[in-house]
């Protein structure tokens, strides 16, 4: 029976351990997010040419990853959740890249 039956899902690969994130971690995250925001605003006033949006987006992405990993606990979650999150961003990228490829190659002209 136990071979199949695992009501507590202990041996299930889709099962993640339960982890309580402490206020200390949260505070660290909070501070780093604020710092990130400050850097973003500061960087916007410096002329980096083409790198301005790159920097802005890189910081935004970092912040988002931090939020996802810690505020949203993905760091401590099961593989399933991690893969789900990845799948979401993958599809998002499919939408962006495939559509963009049309707009970009239109400028190449006819054939």
């Amino acid at each position, binding site marked *: *029976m136990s071979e*199949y*039956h*695992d*009501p507590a899902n202990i041996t299930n690969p*889709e099962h993640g351990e339960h982890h309580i994130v402490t206020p200390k971690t949260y505070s660290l995250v909070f501070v780093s997010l604020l710092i990130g925001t400050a850097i973003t605003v500061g960087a916007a006033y410096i002329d980096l040419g083409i790198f301005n949006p790159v920097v802005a987006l890189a910081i935004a992405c970092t912040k988002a990853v931090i939020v996802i990993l810690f505020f949203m606990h993905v760091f401590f979650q099961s593989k*399933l959740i991690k893969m789900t999150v990845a*799948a*979401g961003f993958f*599809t998002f990228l*499919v*939408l962006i890249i*495939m*559509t963009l*490829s*049309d*707009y*970009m*190659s*239109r400028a*190449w002209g*006819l*054939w």
Partner: protein
Amino acid sequence: MSATNSTILNLPDQKTATLPKRNYINAEDGLLSWLFTGDHKRIGMLYLISITFFFFIGGAFAGLIRLELLTPQPDLVASDTYNKLFSMHGIIMVFLFLVPSVPATIGNFLIPIMIGAKDLAFPKINLLSWYLYWIGGLFTLTAMVLGGVDTGWTFTTPLSTHYLNTHVVTAGLGVFIIGFSSIFTGLNFIVTIHRMRAPGMTWFRMPLFVWSNYAASILMVLGTPVLAITLVLVVLERTIGIGVFDPTKGGDPLLFQHLFWFYSHPAVYIMILPGMGVISEVISTFSRKRVFGYTAVAFSSVAIALFGFFVWAHHMFIMGVSNYSALVFSLLTMLVAVPSAIKTFNWAFTLQKGSITFETPMLYAFGFLGLFTIGGMTGVFLGALGMDIHLTETYFIVAHFHFVMVGGMLMAFLAGVHFWWPKMTGRMYPESLSKLAAVTTFIGFNLTFLPQFILGYLGMPRRYHSYPPEFQVLNVLSTAGATVLGVGYMLPLLYLAWSLKYGEIAGNNPWQATGLEWQIQSPPLTENFIEVPIMDHEAYDYEWLAHKTEQEVTTVG
């Protein structure tokens, strides 16, 4: 009990048999107990009634379309009325009928049982999804009653945003809301399939119906929101005049096409995959064999879902996408067609060395195989760039998608409804009438839509209210076929209703099928299983079934 050799039907002795005293239908009484139910089986039945209602509304529109097209002249209805007819027909059929058809009815009813769960993971969300369906449906009906919409089901901008003065906003919001109903169904399925499987129910022991619904659910969850935001932008553009798609304000109308088809191409696979699942179950049961190449069929479902996201621009080949993109999307379209071919051949080979009987669901499944092959192959015509130039926006497309959607999915839906009818209601449908209906729909269908391929190649454009007279003969054939088809669809409505009261008692497992759903009473208990089942054998294991039946006979006898 029928004794002929040509059936596997195994009914209990009608003189003594009764429906189980306790089951999900009579567990609670009163309309409210249905309207506030959390039971996936009841919600499935509510859905079944709802989509049937909308199917016949959509069908009535189809009837009117075909009547108008009987003659080349614009005589039956005015041109804007005609435009409203096909728009409402498309919107209702796609969003209110075909997308929820198999998943929300049969899937809702069966997926938890098939994987040995007591219910879907989120019963309340399941109910919510049904209500959302109706709210969206009411919006659509309101748009219809107030005077209709004439955008076509594709809501093409800038036509829909700036040039039509019909109830686009109402209908758009309706579709928006129905979209969320579909998202919630898909979400519920995914969670249920991941988290609620009974002990021993590994991924590769699940019935293929579950696999295909899982694949379709992924598409629902990831695709539908893009449609939602697109419709929001259309509505905003119409109401307050923002300029995202409007060429006069600097927007790009092609962006609308990209976003719309990013959903609507995957949506066609939402519309076919669950049907493919039904076909797997039916063919296996009536040939008493495990589906040939189980893993191949399971993976091809997932492959269709995955590749389905990469091909949307094949709906825009002549609309001004870049030639390079067109090439890429055409190539990917060819790739996405392959898994369907794999499935088709696997189904065919499932029959090999089987012991085949021809009950109604099997007849519908045969119909599916033939018609889907034609429909799918004509899809390949359309995916070929140069060919698409001539065929696009003609009746060839109309024929293509009716072959896959009506010949494919609708046939599969009917196969499924007949197949699981005894499980859902505890009673059999009348066998010979239903065979007649299956044959009628098959003949009517081909008569309706085969001529449309020819019409399309001759160049008759779609969404035409009047047409040059040389196309008339083929159109007459098509209209004649639609009448036959209409009769073919009325029949099940009548005899299934009849069978609710007078049908033979089905017993637990009339088809001698192997799925978990057939091992419990019909109609099932509210909690499906008295005790959590343990899956200790592969899917479609007929030897296990024979062994089990034998044991029962010995213990009972």
